[in-house]
């Protein structure tokens, strides 16, 4: 997460570089911004990001900076994971739902519908990914 570096961290990540059309997303992620692909024709944001709008078929999509806020749609404490984690789907304020983890909270304190906001964390592979915590 060092914008002064000549090479961005995600550029070492095999999964990130396998999707060159998503470069803008990973650059913004390292700056802490959640970009959403949004369609110029139907006006809707979708997830996961694609150049082709999956909602209307248009090829006229562009990245827009999302609010980074949403609500918990569902969550499950994966107790057999090492370390355990709270897998979740979050419905973003812009509409689409994404898979994530809820962090910095005990699963027993969480509720469906609760407000959450994004924070980016570096992954072992190099790209920064969106995680959510309660507000």
């Amino acid at each position, binding site marked *: 997460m060092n914008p002064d570096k000549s090479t961005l961290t995600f550029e070492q990540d095999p*999964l*990130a570089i*396998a*999707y060159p059309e*998503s470069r803008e997303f990973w650059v913004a992620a390292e700056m802490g911004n959640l970009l959403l692909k949004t369609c110029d024709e139907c006006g*809707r*944001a*979708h*997830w*996961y*990001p*694609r150049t082709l*709008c*999956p*909602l209307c078929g248009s090829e006229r999509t562009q990245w827009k900076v999302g609010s980074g806020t949403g609500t918990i*749609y*569902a*969550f*499950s*404490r*994966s*107790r*057999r*994971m090492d370390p355990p*984690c709270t*897998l*979740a*789907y979050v419905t*973003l304020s812009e*509409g*689409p*739902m*994404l*898979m*994530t*983890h809820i962090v910095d909270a005990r*699963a027993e304190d969480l509720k*469906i519908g609760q407000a959450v906001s994004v924070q980016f964390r570096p*992954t072992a*592979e190099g*790209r920064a*990914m969106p995680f959510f915590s309660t507000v």
Partner: protein
Amino acid sequence: MSTQKHAHVAGIFEHPTRFAPDKSVPQLHAECAVGALRDAGLSLSDVDGYFCAGDAPGGGPLWMADYLNLKVRWLDGTEAGGCSYLAHIQHAAVAIAAGRCSIALITLAGKPRSSGMATGTMPQTAGSDRPEAPWTSTYRWSIAGIYGMCAQRHMHQYGTTLEQMAWVKVSASHHAQYNTRALLRKLLTIDDVMDSPVISDPIRRLDCCVITDGGGALVLTTPEIARSLSRPFVRVIGAGQTIYTNDGGYCDLTRTGAERSGAAAFREAGIMPSDIDYASIYDNFTIAVIMQLEDLGFCEKGRGGAFVADGNLISGVGKLPWNTDGGGLCNNHPMNRGGITKAIEAVRQLRGEAHPAVQVKNCRLALASGPGLVTGGGHAHASVIFERN
């Protein structure tokens, strides 16, 4: 093209093993193929159409067809997870109706049990070439984790309870107690399920299916050839398949592709859910059965929990005899793919070959239905309706 009246199920075989460290995957496929052909009264040299999915070694149908040395004129390697084999039945029926093959062989085999695969709880990294992988692989999602969210959401929206989910497992165990091959034969109580350890909230250990080695096979053929064989007449009268995925980020975790695959199968068969005498419904998790019963139209959306309670799925007790072999929850879930065993038990019921303790009297219409891959994480779904005549 309608599949109606053209495709008959001539042969079925469920491999008896549940643990096969001494056999390769191709060997298991071969034993299943020969078993189903023997059941039909046919041999490998009769096969002119071969169907398999991602479990077949070598990627695609070529290498198992080579292993069996089949002389085929139709190949299909459609990979749709655990429901692939139900989709293959539809594909075989269409190919038979079109005259493209006359004796179609479908096989499944694998050995996750002897390989020590922790199927439900391990992080799913296998699909790393799937297009959403950059945005999901970090989260170490497991199959149990996704179904946990499906269950939690269903409970939230419809008031479904853990006890209702437990009824699904208890019902399966009522049937499995008669199946000497079943991996889990113990008759379970609601308390047994409720008290089993949580895997991924709110999914408990006994909400999950078993993990088994083994496989199965089916042989489909023309009405003319079926009449020349000595097996009871069981024909495909309706089928449907679809996908239900992330939907651009707007999916509903409480719903499944059964809405579309079931509706297509019932429409083609010209019957209603209430006409079904026996149903095989894919049961990798208890909540999956509840969601599919609703989506197939056996009850209103959201009423699946009430529908499965009090033994309504137990043969001889409830209104809808279901998974009378013990299903994936108790009997067998070869290669973590339950589609083929669903079709096999449906055919057994229609032939009158189910265990006498669970055999449905005068069973004439049966459904086999299920998802492939992970409901709530993007899945395929297929349904087939069979008729005894």
